[in-house]
């Protein structure tokens, strides 16, 4: 693993003044790889190893039993509601912020970014304080038979909170970079605001939008802390996939826990592949802040 260096390559060239010696390079690369291996790759490998430990039949049975299927369905349902809402918000907010000059703009951006600075558990807690049985609106909600906490609406709200900034934070710098010239030209030529957005702005931001939605979706489907607080963890009803993983694990049903976890790990890997592809193919159409 460590002998991947380029002995011949280096020998041909005189050592550069701005390069480390090749022996040093190999040592530094080895240290980096060792660190990544211990912290990143072994855990990732262990997910699949543990999932298939009791054989493929057990794996298939674990992910197709009714509670697991219910968790998969719920996770998809939450993402289907939360992601489009946050996507629409992201587009609307970045139109307001990037296309106009107004006071307090950077303060507004800070507020939009706020959910990233708050612990996911707090995200759950605040909805419990608002809508829970002892919460501010609890008595009114129970009088009207509306269930939010320990039910689907609470899970969706908590997910929306934690994934709130993803699309906006991708689109704002992108649209600021693109400026307003094209939109102004379209409006001057008689296009309506909606036409301008559809024909000019949307094509300009589509890859950035997709990038933001991709990250938003990954977090929405994988969120654990915020959802754990508001869901009540009722098997087959309010258990999302990450919560199902926790419950199975705490019941010492490790193979089943890792089987469900392996689906989430596959989702994460798929997200990374698509993200890398977007960065590679459409890097110029994605905000500078996200590129590297």
């Amino acid at each position: 693993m460590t002998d991947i260096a380029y002995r011949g390559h280096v020998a041909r060239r005189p050592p550069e003044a701005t390069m480390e010696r090749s022996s040093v390079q190999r040592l530094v690369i080895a240290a980096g790889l060792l660190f990544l291996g211990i912290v990143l790759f072994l855990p990732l490998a262990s997910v699949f190893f543990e999932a298939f430990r009791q054989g493929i039949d057990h794996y298939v049975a674990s992910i197709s039993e009714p509670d697991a299927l219910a968790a998969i369905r719920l996770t998809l349902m939450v993402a289907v509601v939360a992601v489009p809402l946050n996507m629409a918000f992201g587009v609307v907010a970045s139109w307001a912020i990037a296309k106009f000059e107004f006071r307090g703009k950077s303060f507004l951006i800070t507020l939009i970014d706020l959910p990233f600075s708050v612990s996911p558990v707090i995200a759950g807690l605040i909805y419990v304080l608002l809508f829970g049985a002892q919460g501010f609106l609890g008595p009114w909600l129970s009088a009207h038979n509306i269930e939010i906490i320990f039910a689907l609406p609470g899970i969706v709200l908590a997910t929306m909170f934690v994934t709130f900034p993803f699309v906006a934070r991708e689109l704002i710098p992108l649209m600021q970079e693109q400026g307003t010239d094209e939109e102004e030209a379209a409006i001057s030529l008689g296009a309506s605001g909606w036409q301008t957005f559809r024909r000019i702005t949307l094509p300009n931001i589509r890859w950035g939008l997709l990038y933001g939605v991709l990250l938003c979706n990954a977090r929405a489907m994988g969120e654990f802390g915020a959802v754990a607080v508001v869901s009540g963890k009722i098997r087959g009803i309010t258990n999302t996939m990450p919560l199902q993983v926790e419950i199975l694990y705490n019941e010492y049903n490790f193979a089943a826990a890792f089987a469900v976890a392996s689906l989430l790990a596959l989702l994460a890997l798929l997200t990374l592949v698509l993200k890398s592809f977007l960065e590679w193919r459409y890097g110029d159409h994605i905000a500078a802040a996200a590129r590297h």
Partner: protein
Amino acid sequence: MAHSLTTIPNPLRLSRPSIIPGYGLTMGLTVTYLSLIVLLPLSALVAKSASLGWVEFWRLALDDRTLAAVRLSVSAAFGAALVNLFFGILLAWVFTRYRFPGRKLLDAMVDLPFALPTAVAGIALTAIYAPNGWIGSLATMLGWKIAYTPIGIIIALTFIGLPFVVRTVQPIIQDLDRDVEEASATLGASRWQTLRRVVLPTLAPAALTGFALALARGIGEYGSVIFIAGNLPYKSEIAPLLIVIRLEEFNYAAATAVGAMMLAISFTMLLLINLIQAWSRRRYAND
């Protein structure tokens, strides 16, 4: 950045005039949605804290178990952020300066902690570092215990915080002016001296930003930690877990007090990060 509007801002107007339509509509929707999803719920936490009364709030917030949990969350996050500071700079350097097979794949994989659900990371790390796990069993032979101790918490937070320093430092290394390093070498500095005296100071603001981001993320982290931590009160119980425990006891007052403390820490970190970033922007703008 394009500034096509050259009108001088009128101090009495909130926004500058523009021929692009939709300002009122989009701004109205933005503020409404932001208030409903983020600001209003967050103010519920503040309102609940206020309703407890000054004395009761501090009694709950300064409770021994709460303080121990907050201290553990902050110190473990600090330790993990330090590990990430060192390896983050190292990896950013390796990915931008060195060429070796598999480099791009490894570089892309650094973002895994952002994409992998925290619960999955938590059980996977526990499986590896538990006494019967791949690394845990090696540690046991040496007489060490990793999982179910604060060391395990630091490992989980190291995983969670891994991408921050790498991603803040990488673009700075990419834009480094090699001439400066060459000048330093020409003037007789050894490679190590050049790295220490010329390169590292340039990376410092970005690295510090990444460090602060990893620290902030680590303090509030829950999912990846609870499986590996052991969760013993006063010893290995993190602050977010204590909130969950209090909520499960239906002790909303105590949960609120811990939550308010955590929120105060988050806001302090946010302010700190903004200050570091402002300093960082000034530094890199001058180069």
